[in-house]
């Protein structure tokens, strides 16, 4: 071989080595890069998955920015000819022709229309608007908003009782009684925690308001939610109304409510959590079960019956409606894309037998086998069914298939979905939308017992504490945390061990929580995109333009102060603004604030972000502080959690007033 050729060969070999080394190095770097950002071993070195389809959606997602409809609540006109459907994501009230089963128009309504109710003559609709704290009155002939009626914070359910509106103000935890014509607020009544749906008796004498969340309880106590019953009485301003607070024992997530025509009874949907048990399994309803509450209006007795089967669960019971003959109820299950048909005669029989046997009626829901006696059918419907409505003659059931942007049409006689009405939502499914479907589906849980939403209703938090298995039974009970405003707050978990959402929702999540199959990587990417898209609601404690009250301004100074009232300097580490720093008010580090209990195996916990902290009760890593005040008055007696002992009641109130504005 000539020297020239030999040099050429040597060059080729060196070049090949260089390419191989560069390739190997690039791969080594990529493996580390993916592991760093996902916190997991790379399941696939797919640049596109994260850099193009992740973090809020694909490039085409961002270019198109489709606006989904996400139909939530349905009202049917008295003549059965027209449906009115709230579309919170497109800020519209959709008009659907029932006969042709086609969309017949859209009415722009506020910013986030949630629930809808119609007048008796079908001429007017009232629509609650979650974002702007008002109820819109819509003239259905002209299809225009004719008046806005101020309500409380984040109105959800709405009912019409004669000439009055009963409005459940979710974030205000109260109920507005409004004059339907003038909007004059006749009363503001305290509700339970996060009032959600409203049902009004046919004679308009009584309104039932479900409350989504349980009232905060002492550590180790079982949570129970409230069903608020309001005897509406006189329409006179200031007249007394009798309110009965039914404690729905061992249950929360009360979403739907309906009166049973012809019977002195009403139905609600509920979930029975098992958060006090060490989460060692899913089988047999160990994590949670769904239920139907049956309220006897004469006695106030509330029976709870199971909606699940023994080895198959129907996650996230949502709305409930009853046929005009009072014999059949329908419940939507958002987590499993099913509507359950229930024989109410059989329900009455089961309750009568249990009463005769002396069984506690509110514990019947733990006998999962009972459902076989009254469940007539499980009807497969579209994705994430929520609101239900019956035609006036009871022959047709309409189902808001929220994540398909469709209305399912169910024939009540055959108990089958016979048609779907396409409401005209975008065809393109963004990563965020796909992630929302993953989030709302119980498919990834053993026996489909629960979805992500089951613990994070309204993408927020259920306010409960859980004893997860890996760190020992009875150890490290941790408070659930909100998903709103999650972006940029890594690491996750109270012990700060999960550096990414991929890790948080990864294989350990499947091994110790869902007990089924981990999410495929593409679903994890979509789920992360959805979670990072969740924005906290508008903070109602801030004044116009973000202005602070005097008390809030004093609280802000306390939050960032460097000296006590007597001038003694406060160490940097003891100042609120040191750990709760930055835009999200977290340094994303772990700190020991003296909150650990005898059963905690770690002392330092992840610093929580403070955005909308006012709606995040309970507090501290194990949820033992039921209010913001208790963080310092009960659980920081020695100034372990910042320096507050010198503040006095007024100073602490100021600090809390400021915290609520964050």
């Amino acid at each position, binding site marked *: 071989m000539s020297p020239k050729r030999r040099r050429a060969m040597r060059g080729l070999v060196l070049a090949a080595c260089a390419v191989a080394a560069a390739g190997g190095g690039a791969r080594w770097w990529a493996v580390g890069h993916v592991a760093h950002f996902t916190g997991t071993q790379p399941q696939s070195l797919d640049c596109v998955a994260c850099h193009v389809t992740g973090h809020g959606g694909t490039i085409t997602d961002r270019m198109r920015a489709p606006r989904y409809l996400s139909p939530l609540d349905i009202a049917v006109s008295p003549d059965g000819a027209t449906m009115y459907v709230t579309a919170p994501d497109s800020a519209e009230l959709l008009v659907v022709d029932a006969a042709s089963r086609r969309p017949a128009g859209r009415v722009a309504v506020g910013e986030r229309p949630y629930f809808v109710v119609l007048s008796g003559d079908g001429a007017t609709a009232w629509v609650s608007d979650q974002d702007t704290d008002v109820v819109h009155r819509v003239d259905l002939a002209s299809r225009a908003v004719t008046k806005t009626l101020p309500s409380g914070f984040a109105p959800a359910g709405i009912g019409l009782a004669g000439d009055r509106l009963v409005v459940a103000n979710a974030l205000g935890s109260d109920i507005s009684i409004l004059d339907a014509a003038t909007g004059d607020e006749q009363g503001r009544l305290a509700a339970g925690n996060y009032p959600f749906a409203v049902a009004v008796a046919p004679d308009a004498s009584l309104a039932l308001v479900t409350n989504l969340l349980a009232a905060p309880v002492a550590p*180790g106590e079982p949570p129970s939610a409230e069903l608020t019953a309001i005897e509406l009485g006189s329409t006179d301003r200031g007249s007394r109304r009798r309110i009965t607070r039914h404690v729905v024992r061992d249950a929360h997530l009360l979403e739907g409510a309906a009166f049973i025509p012809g019977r002195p009874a009403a139905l609600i949907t509920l979930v029975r959590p098992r958060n006090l048990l060490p989460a060692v399994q899913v089988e047999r309803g160990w994590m949670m079960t769904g239920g139907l509450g049956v309220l006897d209006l004469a006695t106030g007795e509330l029976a709870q019956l199971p909606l699940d089967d023994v080895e198959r669960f129907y996650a996230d019971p949502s709305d409930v409606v009853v046929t005009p003959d009072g014999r059949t109820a329908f419940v939507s299950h958002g987590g499993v894309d099913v509507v359950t048909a229930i024989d109410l005669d059989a329900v009455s029989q089961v309750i009568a037998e249990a009463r005769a046997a002396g069984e506690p009626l509110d514990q019947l829901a733990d006998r999962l086998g009972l459902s076989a006696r009254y469940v007539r059918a499980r009807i497969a419907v579209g994705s994430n069914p929520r609101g239900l409505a019956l035609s006036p003659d009871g022959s047709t059931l309409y189902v808001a298939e929220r994540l398909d942007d469709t209305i399912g049409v169910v024939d009540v006689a055959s108990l089958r979905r016979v048609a779907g009405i396409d409401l005209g939502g975008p065809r393109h499914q963004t990563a965020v939308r796909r992630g929302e479907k993953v989030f709302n589906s119980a498919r990834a849980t053993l026996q489909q017992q629960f979805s992500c939403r089951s613990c994070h209703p309204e993408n927020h938090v259920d306010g409960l504490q859980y004893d997860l*298995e*890996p760190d*020992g*039974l009875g150890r490290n009970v941790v408070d659930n945390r909100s998903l709103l405003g999650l972006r940029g707050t890594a690491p996750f978990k109270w012990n700060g061990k999960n550096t990414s959402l991929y890790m948080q929702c990864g294989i350990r999540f499947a091994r110790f929580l869902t007990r089924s199959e981990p999410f495929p990587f593409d679903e994890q990417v979509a789920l992360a995109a959805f979670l990072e898209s969740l924005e906290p609601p508008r903070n109602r404690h801030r004044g116009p333009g973000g202005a602070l009250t005097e008390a809030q301004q004093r609280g802000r100074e306390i939050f960032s102060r460097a000296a006590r009232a007597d001038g003694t300097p406060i160490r940097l580490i003891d100042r609120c603004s040191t750990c709760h720093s930055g835009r999200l008010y977290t340094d994303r580090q772990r700190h020991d604030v003296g909150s650990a209990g005898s059963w905690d195996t770690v002392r330092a916990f992840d610093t929580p972000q403070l955005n909308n902290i006012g709606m995040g009760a309970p507090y501290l890593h194990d949820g033992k502080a039921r209010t913001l005040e208790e963080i310092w008055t009960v659980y920081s007696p020695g100034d372990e959690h910042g320096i507050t002992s010198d503040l006095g009641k007024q100073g602490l109130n100021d600090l809390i007033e400021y915290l609520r504005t964050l």
Partner: protein
Amino acid sequence: VSPRAWWKVGAPAAAVAAAAWAGLAWIPSDPPASGPVDLVTLAPTDESALRGAQHATGRRWVARRDASSGARVLTNAFFRAEAPSPSFDGRWFVFAGRREASSAPAIHRMSLDGSAVREITRGAGEPGEPIVMPGGGIVFTDRAEGPAGTRALFACAEDGSELRRLTFGPHRDASPALLEDGRLRFDRFLRDTGGNESRLTMTIRPDGTGLARSLGSAPAVAASASDAPHGRWGIIPASAGGASDRRELAAVPAAPRPEPPVLTSVVSAARATGTLLCLDVHASRLPAIADLPRGSIAAVKVTRAGGEGAGEVIAEAPVQPDGSFLVEVPADTLVGLTLVGRDGAPLASFHSGVWVRPNENRGCVGCHEPSDRAPANRRPMAVDAASPAYPAGAMKVSE
């Protein structure tokens, strides 16, 4: 070399290479069935006279039955082949078989057209009743340690590696079936001292954890002949490929079907024990327990159940005032439980046996509680009573 020469040599070579590539791409290793196909287990029609051991060792064949072309025996190279279980993509199946009357039985894999036969495992010597598991792997029954006739469920990877036992105790476990939720159902035959057998139908997760009585409501997927939804009797004529007429014992459809979830596992070899957490011993459908006054049960004793050393107390824990107990027990050991009164006298015993896998924390609502009962939402006192130094259920499982 001229371009013309390149063309003369290169073009045919490229054409051959393209054809070869296309052919390879076109012909999958396990071609799928083109229409409805059943896998049928056949037996000689004259076998009805055989009894006992003869019946268990007689000839069997696995045949493929197409709607259009009828039945065709796939296992003529085997003396006995039975219990076919198709893969979820409908391209291949596993079965139990022996090539000669005197050869050892094994679990085999075969394409649906009868090609690509491969032995997967000989297990402990008598493997049978294989089923294909979601995510790969095979579950089968086999001879197990214990008195004669003891059989257990085993699992292995698709290539026969990672052989592991899933069920425990000196009993005969049979008829595994895959449930739609990813768990396994099987029959457990218990023998009394007189040699009589009684049957319990149980469920486990695919790693052997979560042993429970089958509640009967979870549907099974048709993964083996024992679950065939339309197995039927009939006569397969000799023209189908055999020396004589054969009768059909069972059939299972081989069409592609949804794959149940691959359930995760907490089993870890790093720990030799597991825990039993009972929420309330008084929650029982047995009056002998349910009627015991609260506070009368002082402790629970865990004994070895069945086999050598039966009755030996291997763990003990107090029963708390709320009826809960938490006890750590050796893994992979069939254990019985005895409730003990304040005076130390036994109040009730359960000998049918349960086990925990290494690192498993097993929860029970009660002791023989009603089978449809979900637990009450109460923090069991047993988890608070355990010493903080005691690492109850503490585990470290690698990712």
